[in-house]
């Protein structure tokens, strides 16, 4: 069995029965907690889509005064 073949099978078996990898899951959950919950995360996604609709790049910014995250052109 070639190394390439073994690597493919191992990566395949590794992620069995998950929609996202464990790392992606924990990363998304941590991001939701960081911004204040899933509702805030979804609000940021709506802001991102609104800005991205005209082709602009976006970046996440945290207002140090309010501690609230928002999406800006960038």
């Amino acid at each position, binding site marked *: *069995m070639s190394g390439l*073949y073994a690597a*493919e*099978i191992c990566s*395949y078996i590794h*992620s*069995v*029965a*998950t*929609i*996202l*990898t*464990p*790392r*992606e*899951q*924990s*990363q*998304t*959950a*941590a*991001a*939701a*907690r*960081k*911004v204040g*919950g*899933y*509702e805030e*995360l*979804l609000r*940021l*996604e709506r802001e*991102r889509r609104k800005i991205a609709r005209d082709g602009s790049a*976006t*970046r*996440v*910014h*945290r207002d140090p005064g309010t*501690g609230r*995250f928002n*999406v800006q052109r960038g």
Partner: protein
Amino acid sequence: MNLTLGVLAGVVLLLPGLIALSAWNLRASRSGASRPELPLTAVSVLVIAIGGALVAHLVSYFVSEAGLRLAVLVGDGLQAALPALEQFLPGRHLPVAPANPFVTILSAAEGKPVSVSDLTFVGLVIVGEMMVVTSIIAHDGFDLLLDGFDLANQGWVYQHVIRPSKNGYRPIAHVLTTTQLNGYGIGYRGLVADIRQSEKGETLAISLLDPERFLYGVSIPDAGAENEPAFGRHAVDHVGGVVSIEAKSIFNIVVQNVLADLVDDIEEEPGPDVPDEEGVADV
């Protein structure tokens, strides 16, 4: 060839197609939105297995033929260009190239004697076919090839959970449960970790990672009031860990997707120091 050997040979010849089906089923279970596997007795499944095996055999016939001819050419060239070879290998000759494995199979089917080395070559070729077929189906490129085709017939789960998650989105579900008390119900919101579906495509269970729990209710205005009935959400609290909700408790499910790049940006942006919650494993 007697019946037993005939059946055995038939199964061996179908192996590449059967392996392709097994790899496909394993790949479907990878999505985390699983449905029962199709039974092997289904006509469509058998047709796929036979078709896959035929394609694999056809390709390997030409590859074997080309490889054997190349090997014979190289061998002839070596013997012609290096007459001194005999000095180093007195009395020895380069091994005879085996027959094309599919010629061997036909010879065996006709009852003609076949050598052990030819049979071994047949086995090697079939094992090679199985490895190649598994590699192709396990490869991420195969996903790209079939992107947009809901081959497992998973319906909305494919379009709104599996496909987005394979294309850089993270599915977040709001699940309203049937638990009701004094006009209030319990709902959960979290990252979709797993969905199970029945053979008919009904949702059997959904698991949410690191969920929040909330109370919901519909406010009905008094008679004569101007305001309209409204859906209200109250008292959100963080549960953490994983919640698995079975079909009998699911009232409805709403799925929204968040771009993975947004999650990456949030991760990079410095935020308040919030300790890790219990129940969410750091990977």
